[in-house]
């Protein structure tokens, strides 16, 4: 099995082996072994739920730092629109954008500009009927990865267009080369990210060979420096070129609104997303053209690398969008060709199946069903697996034993005690 890069990491010293992350991981990708959490790399989709729920802050997202821009001669920041919702009383997006220049970037290029192009391209694709309906958004990398490992029948419904961040990075890089005359390797393009899934996506993209981004810096990581710089700006540059469609992408429902059709559905929060995917797979959801799915509650403003409450951020973004034109970016010439995926989304069958030999898999499942009948069914997580069923699976795979279940162990001890008592 190939190795996977993940931006979600465990700080072993801080982990006390509690079951908070274990119980909340939507893909059952965590086990507690020898008192510490372990991430099953191939199952992790970098949604960040474990970071959100860990009371000991033992999970963290690996993201780039502001220092990293020193490696390049010229740097472009490409901020997610979620950034605009992070500041109290911000009435002009340009203050945040000028702030980014003040902390070291040479240029900024808003991801929301590319989002408007993706919206237009999506409208065209849906109109042309080129993708199986309902078309599922490909903007949230955690969702795309989830579909790739769990929903084989839905892979062909995923919108085969690059996410706005990748389109923005490509354009920003091209413009920077033209402007400076520098080589591509001298130009750093950094995404200002609300979530760890984007960090992973830049490192190991789902749909292109190599990302045009050099890294992603968490919003929360630069927040103190950025707010300080924003407070001391000498003049505010007019940098923003986004309309309300582009900036709307920051929150759940924003991308759907950009489709300019009524038959859409927008779900957010990973559990809700999974429920919708299950129903889509069983064809219970009909009469919908477009499905927008965001792993985080509230959409990108709910990412674990943001600082503000997602609903507060959402309210601020609504206010900021109010007087903007609908859209300020339009597809030109070969724009659309540059947005296509390089690689088709392929279902990764190995992740959840028990064995690639169907007879062996059936034998294992038979054993699992029997083991399950014998387990208490409390799903307490004390054994280190998230549910009794997951534990049964771990046992047949040779990764756990029945006495890891404290209830089984207790019963065994009781039995030995009773036997001893009788012999005395």
């Amino acid at each position: 099995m190939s190795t996977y890069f993940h931006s979600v990491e465990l700080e072993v010293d801080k982990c006390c082996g509690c079951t908070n992350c274990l119980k909340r991981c939507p893909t059952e990708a965590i086990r507690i072994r020898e008192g510490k959490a372990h991430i099953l790399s191939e199952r992790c989709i970098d949604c960040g739920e474990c970071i959100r729920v860990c009371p000991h802050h033992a999970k963290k997202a690996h993201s780039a730092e502001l220092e990293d821009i020193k490696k390049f001669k010229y740097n472009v920041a490409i901020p997610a629109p979620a950034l605009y919702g992070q500041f109290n009383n911000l009435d002009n997006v340009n203050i945040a954008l000028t702030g980014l220049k003040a902390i070291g970037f040479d240029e900024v290029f808003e991801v929301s500009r590319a989002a408007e192009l993706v919206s237009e391209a999506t409208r065209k694709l849906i109109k042309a009927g080129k993708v199986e309906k309902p078309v599922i958004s490909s903007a949230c990398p955690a969702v795309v990865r989830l579909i790739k490992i769990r929903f084989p029948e839905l892979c062909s419904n995923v919108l085969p267009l690059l996410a706005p961040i990748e389109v923005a990075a490509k354009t920003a890089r091209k413009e920077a080369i033209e402007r400076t005359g520098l080589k591509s390797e001298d130009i750093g393009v950094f995404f200002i990210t609300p979530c760890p899934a984007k960090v992973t996506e830049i490192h190991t993209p789902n749909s292109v060979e190599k990302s045009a981004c050099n890294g992603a810096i968490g919003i929360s990581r630069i927040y103190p420096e950025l707010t300080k710089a924003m407070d001391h700006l000498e003049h505010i540059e007019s940098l923003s070129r986004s309309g309300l469609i582009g900036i709307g992408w920051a929150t759940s429902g924003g991308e759907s609104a950009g489709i300019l059709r009524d038959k859409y559905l927008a779900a957010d929060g990973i559990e809700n997303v999974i429920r919708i995917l299950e129903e889509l797979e069983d064809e219970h959801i009909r009469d919908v053209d477009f499905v927008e799915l965001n792993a985080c509650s509230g959409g990108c403003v709910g990412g674990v690398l943001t600082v503000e409450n997602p609903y507060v951020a959402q309210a601020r973004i609504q206010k900021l969008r109010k007087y903007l034109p609908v859209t300020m970016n339009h597809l030109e010439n070969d724009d659309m060709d540059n947005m296509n995926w390089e690689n088709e989304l392929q279902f990764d069958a190995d992740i959840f199946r028990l064995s690639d030999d169907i007879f062996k898999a059936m034998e294992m499942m038979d054993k699992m069903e029997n083991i399950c009948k014998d387990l208490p069914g409390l799903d307490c997580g004390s054994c280190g697996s998230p549910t009794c069923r997951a534990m049964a699976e771990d046992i047949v795979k040779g990764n756990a034993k029945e006495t890891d279940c404290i209830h089984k162990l207790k019963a065994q001890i009781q039995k030995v005690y009773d036997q001893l008592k009788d012999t005395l």
Partner: protein
Amino acid sequence: MSAIHLHYEVSGDDFTRAGEASGSVKKRLKSLGFDPDAIRRVAIAMYEAEINMVIHAEGGYCDVDIYPDKVEILLADKGPGIPDVDKAMQEGFSTAPDNVRNLGFGAGMGLPNIKKYTDEMRIETTIGVGTNLYLTVNVNNN
């Protein structure tokens, strides 16, 4: 090897719980690495049948046997029985009450859909006694 046998009780009074059995079977077939198209057909057919049990028969039970090359399903209820099976098989024919239709069910596509998604379908029904629905989905697991 012999089949994997699964048994589910289908609750009769709760729409929100219909789909529990088909969801559980779907999850198991995925971990067995079954052909995705066959999994989808099993899940859809079973769900429709579960809904039928909730609407018409106040629940019942469901037995599933998973073989390497097919999935056999029995859905049994002690409901009122189907008076005219041929009519029930017609698209759009439904005896579902209005409150059920308001929820988006009862469009008269249940049995026709089940037939469409399965390779074999057999109905044993007796008025006042109940209905047994036997389904087979053949699976090509290459």
